[in-house]
């Protein structure tokens, strides 16, 4: 292979700014989607363990349908499928205010919410039922025993699989390039288009993702040790 590298394309011209913008968009998209996913995940994960059947059934159908369909399909669904159903005014407003970003955020958040709920459910179910019974016997309501007893313990148990899932979310945010959200992979492709330097551009993008993922994993390993419940060796298995 006689390919002459020209790494300078990464810091001459617009490339540097594009990469930085892409990184910021990736972080912003992932952070917002993560908040949505965690909220949905806690809600659905907790609801799947309650006694009341309709609630449990609704949560189960949400989880089973959304996590078993490719994220890319959800991207197209939220970006192309949903807006035409909205009133004209809202549509116009959306397309003037970065509809692709919000569609990507919804797709990522709702999809990963279903996956995170599985992590949370396995965390809740790893707590002995007697803990719940004891807290009810102490006079707490169901909601109180979830909020004060079960969730605080479950949340500490699930740090490793939840980290894993959050990193999946970060990496999956690259799928948003298909609906032209200008995130990191999109910008990498843009540099490649403008400079015709595929290897250099892809290396830059890949390294940024690697550094991001490895540093988050390192930080979370510290968090895991810090909040580990003393005396427990049991780990919650990785989510399905």
């Amino acid at each position, binding site marked *: 292979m006689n390919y002459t590298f020209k790494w300078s394309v990464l810091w001459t011209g617009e490339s540097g700014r594009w990469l930085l913008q892409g990184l910021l968009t990736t972080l912003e998209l992932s952070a917002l989607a993560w908040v949505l996913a965690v909220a949905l995940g806690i809600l659905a994960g907790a609801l799947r363990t309650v006694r009341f059947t309709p609630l449990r059934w609704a949560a189960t159908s949400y989880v089973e349908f959304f996590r078993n369909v490719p994220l890319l399909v959800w991207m*197209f669904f939220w970006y192309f499928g949903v807006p035409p159903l909205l009133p004209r005014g809202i549509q116009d407003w959306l397309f003037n205010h970065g509809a692709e970003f919000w569609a990507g955020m919804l797709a990522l958040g709702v999809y990963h919410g279903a996956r995170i709920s599985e992590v949370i459910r396995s965390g809740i179910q790893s707590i002995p039922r007697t803990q719940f019974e004891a807290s009810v016997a102490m006079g707490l309501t169901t909601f109180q025993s979830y909020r004060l007893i079960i969730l605080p313990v479950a949340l500490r148990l699930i740090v490793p699989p939840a980290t894993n899932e959050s990193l999946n979310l970060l990496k999956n945010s690259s*799928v948003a390039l298909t609906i032209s959200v200008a995130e990191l*992979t999109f910008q990498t492709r843009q540099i490649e288009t403008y400079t015709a330097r595929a290897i250099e551009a892809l290396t830059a993008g890949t390294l940024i993702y690697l550094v991001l993922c490895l540093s988050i994993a390192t930080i979370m390993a510290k968090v895991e040790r810090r909040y580990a419940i003393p005396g427990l060796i049991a780990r919650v298995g990785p989510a399905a």
Partner: protein
Amino acid sequence: MDVSVITSNFKFLILQGLIGIGPFIGGTLRLAIPAILFGFVLGIFVGLARLAQAPWIRMPATMYVEFFRGVPLVMVIFWIWFIIPQLLRLPIPEYGVALTAFVIFEAAYFGEIVRAGVQSVPRGQVEAATALGMTGTKTMAYVVLPQALKNMVPSLVTQMIVLFKDTSLASIIGYVDLTKAAQIVNNREIKPFQIYIFIAIVYWLCTYSMSVFARRLERRAA
């Protein structure tokens, strides 16, 4: 709601998109099945290499796994798309690019499952096999791997479902799978809601039947 767009394009979506019979080289199943098989086989080697005593085998395998688990699949697909034509000096069809990318990427994930599966086999089994005079390779092939495989079934199926869904990303480089077929139909008919919900249901039926099958398999293995 008007679903005639589905009935009139049903054949194209299912035959061309899902199975791969039609004017284009495509098909979700035609990509997913070999990708799962080859990815798993390569994953066995990666997983065993990560457990090797010799550091010059273990270290590259560890780096391989850490690298691919830290990078989005979309990125890997673009890498293969640009690199292979450069290396081989000949154009590679989308099918080859997508299959290569999936096998390389998923082998890292399958490797981790194989490693965990092997580590779940009690050490005494290896010692007993050695005491019976079996060589290392024989111990691995006849004693450890069969038991490990049984423990791996749930995570393996989960990963296969993930890989099945991931094949939708091949549509980014123009491979005509179910997702691309839906895009083609939508460009002509402009009925995005119906079309994308329909393929979501098709994907769901495939992945859900995989997980039902897995549950039955687990019950039999237990």
